[in-house]
């Protein structure tokens, strides 16, 4: 007896036919591997200075050149990528947790609770939330955990909207009715039965949240409000590079390239996933 292909497998096939998405996945895979394996890929230390050499352009010993303290830019880009990815993933996890719970509860219970919760989301949409992140970072000091908590806490609004819409549609279906009849608890219905059915849009939107969050971190670090010293992220490297680009453009170009390429890839994968998992929605949005 042959089994019909699962929807996930179909989606996988559609995704693999999308050249840009495949390119994005490969580029991301390579980028993440490079960052993870950084200690084995470069002979230099992250903070290792070579003051005699000072700043230099790309050469055979320093592929991306060195900065004014003689630190190897290639090494710093790889280690900076670790921080950028780490902040992006943690912040996305925070936003996922808040957004999915908020949206699922609002969508499932409906009525007054729903309108109240979604009004709050609407109101928050209008807030200058980056200023709130800046405010929080200013008041409580710059540190890694606070940074991704703050970013995650302001980036969950769209996720909540999407999840709510999906839950509204799914909760009308017969199997949810059956769960009620069997006396399954509401919490279990939401998290065990409804949410797995709206996983597609959640994954799509999550893939699109990661680059947004990464950009926000880079933005804060660029302004000097992000990752504290001595750690560095791509945003901080770009900031340093922008200050010294007149003499050594390589200091700006390589970290900028790393960040842009990663953002490109995430967007390609996200768009590809949307087309694959949700063929009805047009890709032109």
């Amino acid at each position, binding site marked *: 007896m042959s089994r019909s292909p699962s929807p996930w497998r179909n989606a996988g096939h559609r995704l693999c036919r999308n050249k840009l998405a495949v390119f994005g996945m490969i580029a991301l895979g390579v980028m993440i591997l490079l960052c993870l394996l950084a200690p084995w890929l470069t002979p230099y230390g992250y903070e290792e200075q070579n003051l005699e050499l000072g700043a230099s352009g790309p050469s055979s010993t320093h592929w991306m050149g060195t900065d004014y303290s003689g630190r190897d830019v290639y090494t710093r880009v790889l280690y900076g990528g670790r921080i950028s990815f780490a902040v992006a993933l943690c912040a996305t996890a925070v936003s996922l947790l808040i957004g999915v719970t908020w949206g699922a509860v609002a969508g499932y219970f409906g009525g007054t609770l729903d309108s109240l919760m979604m009004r709050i989301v609407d109101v928050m*949409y209008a807030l200058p939330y980056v*200023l709130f992140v800046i405010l929080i970072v200013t*008041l*409580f000091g710059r540190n890694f955990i606070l940074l991704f908590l703050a970013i995650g806490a302001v980036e969950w609004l769209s996720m909540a909207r999407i999840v709510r819409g999906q839950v509204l549609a799914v909760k009308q279906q017969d199997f949810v009715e059956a769960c009620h009849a069997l006396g399954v608890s509401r919490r279990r219905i939401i998290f065990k039965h409804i949410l797995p059915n709206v996983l597609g849009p959640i994954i799509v939107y999550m893939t699109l949240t990661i680059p947004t969050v990464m950009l926000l971190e880079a933005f804060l670090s660029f302004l*000097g*409000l992000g990752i504290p010293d001595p750690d560095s992220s791509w945003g901080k490297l770009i900031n340093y590079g922008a200050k010294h*680009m007149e003499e050594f453009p390589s200091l700006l170009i390589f970290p*900028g390239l790393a960040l842009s390429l990663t953002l490109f890839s995430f967007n390609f994968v996200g768009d590809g996933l949307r087309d694959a998992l949700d063929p009805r929605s047009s890709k032109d949005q």
Partner: protein
Amino acid sequence: MLRKLLARLLETVVTLFAIVTITFFIVGLAPGNPFEQERALPESVMKQVQAHYGFDQPLPVRYLMYMRGLAHGDLGPSLKYPGLSVNELFKGAIPASLELGVWALLFAMITGLISGLVAAWRPNTWSDYVPMSFAMGGICIPSFVLGPLLALFCGIGLGWFRVAGWEYPEDRVLPTITLGAIYAAYIARLTRGGMLEVMNQDFVRTARAKGLKEIRVVLGHALRVGVLPVVSFIGPAAAGLITGSFVVETIFRIPGLGTIIVNAALARDLFVILGGVILYGTILVLLNLFVDLLLMGLDPKIRGNQA
């Protein structure tokens, strides 16, 4: 219609109130003392300084004091520039930021709409791929990479523009492009999407059947509806422009609000940040109100009896 309008106005007032209150209490409940400096002040001086700014009062009293000031349009004193009020600081900086924002929004609207229309004209041909590739680039290259690169190539390399400053008309070019690029890209994508969806609808077929020229069908009939997603995007775009202007003002050394707020954040100048959040919050909330009214005017569906 009138009831909806009133409800919308009430909501605006509530939102503004919420912004001020939330921000104030975040600031008030934060640990540490805004007057702490590298060199510790003597106890008596510290007490005096705190009393001068009303910081010896309990938080609710301070809140009421601040609200009373706000009702008179007073955003309080700057803690880092003694003698200067936040109002004075902002007043000097608003013209530059406002001008930059308006230029960037205009640039984004014009290039975005035109390239979106061109792309939607013949979908899936070169006239679609080329502008859409540029749009993808605009979305993925962050302003703080684009800005320095533009300064490097057009400023230092070709010598067309100065790299920093805000005195001459040509100083506006690079910051405008840097700030507007990403929104031009989003608007192009939204316009393309909106137009493609509209072009298949019945009223467009009717317009064609009447024998109207294609250009009138597109610009006179389809665009009016196809542009709706772009109009709804103005609110988020303005919010993004404000954020983006922080970076662009820093890169091109423009004496605007963004520079002041970033410096205040680095120096922990509380009233300035608080004032910044309130000022920008107010602008955004009012802008969103304006966009909603505009949508009501454009879209017969919203204007009608929809809940």
